[in-house]
């Protein structure tokens, strides 16, 4: 295995990443001098006007995100108000009965399903993605790396509805026996037996989680690769110089340095997982109960909107939009939490460096 770290930083072809070379020099980051924002070396006023204009243009582009989000939030919240008002905000979120017939709208079963499937997805996707990113940056030969990058990129290009299609027509019918076999295997073990109970069907939390993992892997991998490229070459070389094995170098030099970035990468993957609609709707089983059994049918917030939208009317429609609003709010909370984690990690790292 040619795992020369210097070698790893050289460029690769069409499928490679251009920033690689820069990774070596650029990312001693924090200390590198910045170009002052207001640097003005003179020039005529027209040029200055262009500069101001450009600044205005890009600022507006940035603001577009806020404008669109605000519009989404306003239109959807307004639409959802009747249903949320009907249940009360707390009742809407924590209610465990979803019975549109009786105008009872409790979204907790879907909230639970969203969290469980996303969690399963992340438990699988994050380590696998980090593994792939490490393989690409530290282990693979130049040529092999090209192929792997291609495979991951192709995985990203597979439309989610195709995953749903393969999932429901191909995987679900045969995988139920594997689930049942696994369930039988762990039945004597206390916690696992309740987590992996009897499987009646291949449509369940676990299958949905797997599909979410597959969808999140390319996103997390591509960002994790970039993050690993920011690890200063000096750090890696220093670790090797101290006699570290590759694994020890990864553990000691790369992972701590990249922690914040990896959390950010995982968050983007999680965002994708929580919002995935059609693929999950096809394999989740569409049941409205809360079960610790990962092999049980369930539902997620995004999936239920897609499943029930067509046949919903009046208050039921409003409640479905309300689920969208709640999902939105959860994404906000998770993002802020992740930011907190990243900040703390950065402070810790700086502390240890000093």
């Amino acid at each position, binding site marked *: 295995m040619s795992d020369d770290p210097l070698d790893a930083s050289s460029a690769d072809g069409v499928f490679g990443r251009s920033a690689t070379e820069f990774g070596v020099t650029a990312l001693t980051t924090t200390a590198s001098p910045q170009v002052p924002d207001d640097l003005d070396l003179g020039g005529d006023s027209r040029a200055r006007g262009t500069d101001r204009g450009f600044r205005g243009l890009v600022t507006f582009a940035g603001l577009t995100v806020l404008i669109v989000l605000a519009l989404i939030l306003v239109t959807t919240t307004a639409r959802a108000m009747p249903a949320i008002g009907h249940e009360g905000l707390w009742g809407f979120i924590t209610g465990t*009965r*979803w*019975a*549109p*017939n*009786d105008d009872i709208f409790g979204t907790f079963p879907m909230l639970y399903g969203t969290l469980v499937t996303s969690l399963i997805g992340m438990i699988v996707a994050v380590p696998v993605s980090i593994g792939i990113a490490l393989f690409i940056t530290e282990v693979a030969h130049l040529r092999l790396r090209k192929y792997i990058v291609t495979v991951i990129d192709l995985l990203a290009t597979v439309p989610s509805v195709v995953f749903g299609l393969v999932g*429901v*027509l191909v995987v*679900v*019918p045969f995988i*139920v026996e594997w689930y049942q076999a696994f369930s039988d295997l762990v039945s004597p073990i206390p916690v696992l037996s309740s987590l992996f109970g009897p499987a*009646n*069907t*291949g*449509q369940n939390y676990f299958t949905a989680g797997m599909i979410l993992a597959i969808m999140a892997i390319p996103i997390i991998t591509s960002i994790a690769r970039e993050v690993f490229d920011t690890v200063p070459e000096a750090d890696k070389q220093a670790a090797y110089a101290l006699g570290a094995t590759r694994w020890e170098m990864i553990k000691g030099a790369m992972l701590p340095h990249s922690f914040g970035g990896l959390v950010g990468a995982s968050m983007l993957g999680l965002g994708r997982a929580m919002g995935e609609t059609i693929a999950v*709707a*096809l394999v*989740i*089983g*569409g*049941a*409205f*109960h809360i*079960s610790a059994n990962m092999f*049980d*049918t369930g*539902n997620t917030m995004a999936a239920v909107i*897609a*499943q*029930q*939208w*067509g*046949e*919903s*009317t*009046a*208050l*039921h*429609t409003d409640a479905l939009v309300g689920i969208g609003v709640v999902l939105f709010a959860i994404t906000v909370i998770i993002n802020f939490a992740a930011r907190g984690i990243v900040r703390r990690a950065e402070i810790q790292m700086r502390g240890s460096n000093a």
Partner: protein
Amino acid sequence: MKLNRRAVFGTVTASALALSLAACGGGDDDDSGSDGDMVSGEIIGTGASFPDAYYAAAIEAYADVNPDLIVTYDAVGSGTGKSDFGEGLNDFAGTDSLVAEGDGPEEGAYQYIPTVAAPITVSYNLPDVEGVQLGQETLAAIFQGDITSWDDDAIAADNPDLELPTTDITIAHRSDGSGTTGNFTLFLDEATDTWTLGAGDTVEWPSNSVGGDGNTGVAQNIQNTEGAIGYVDLADATETGLTFASIENADGNFVQPSLEGTTAGLDGAVVNDDLSYNPLNASGPEAYPITAPTYILIQTEYEDADKAAGVKAFLTWLLTDGQEIAADVHFAALPEGLQQQALDTLNETIPD
């Protein structure tokens, strides 16, 4: 890529142009032949997915009858179809359920036109067991989770001649909101006193259940799960090769789902003034009790005369020649009386 796209766009525009020229040519010929029936243009319907397979077949056949009128039916669901109707997004709406307050269409702005009906089968997966019969109360007990095993006494009582296995029952239901669910639960709600889950397009099923997307999804789940029982429309059930249970009807006979039994059920149903009717659990010895009607909503006043003419032309065909296609795709045609009633109403609503 840019080049590619431009090339594609070019060919497409060219072919579209050619098509529209051809269409114009056709139209002129018709006019010179002074054939008043040949309407041209484009009409869009959205709504119920239950009759989608029939409408798709009918639209294909109609394209041969009158290629100048392009009819599109987008099976987005009855609820969306009705709200589209209210918003003016479609020219007609398909719906399995009647219009309720807050659905979108305003009182007096719509007219029901019944088109076809179809039986909802109760299909099951028990290898080596055929000819299961289910009483109405038993059916309710199974689908609300009171009976969880196939060798339950209530099932045995309905099937004295059968050797029933101890297999657990898994209920297969629709995960998406559906008129099929609506009609099936409405039947259980009306026919029995013991049904507690209510009637509606989305029901709180018991925990021994699995949801599938669309009738096809439910059919696949039944096929893949031993001991499963579920409700599927006849077309999907036949296509998937499922086994149907015979269901007790209002006269106390156990009846297999069939198109004849459905038409018998329609004959026994009372038709209201607005052309809505309820064929569920209709009387008659041969009537199959779980029969779902489906309607098209038309506007009482179309702003665009061309659209009005298009809708009228298509529906007139659908209620006459179009009825003959129904049986081919496992839908039951309307009885002749109702057909004529629907045509009369159509002519009154959209006068020439």
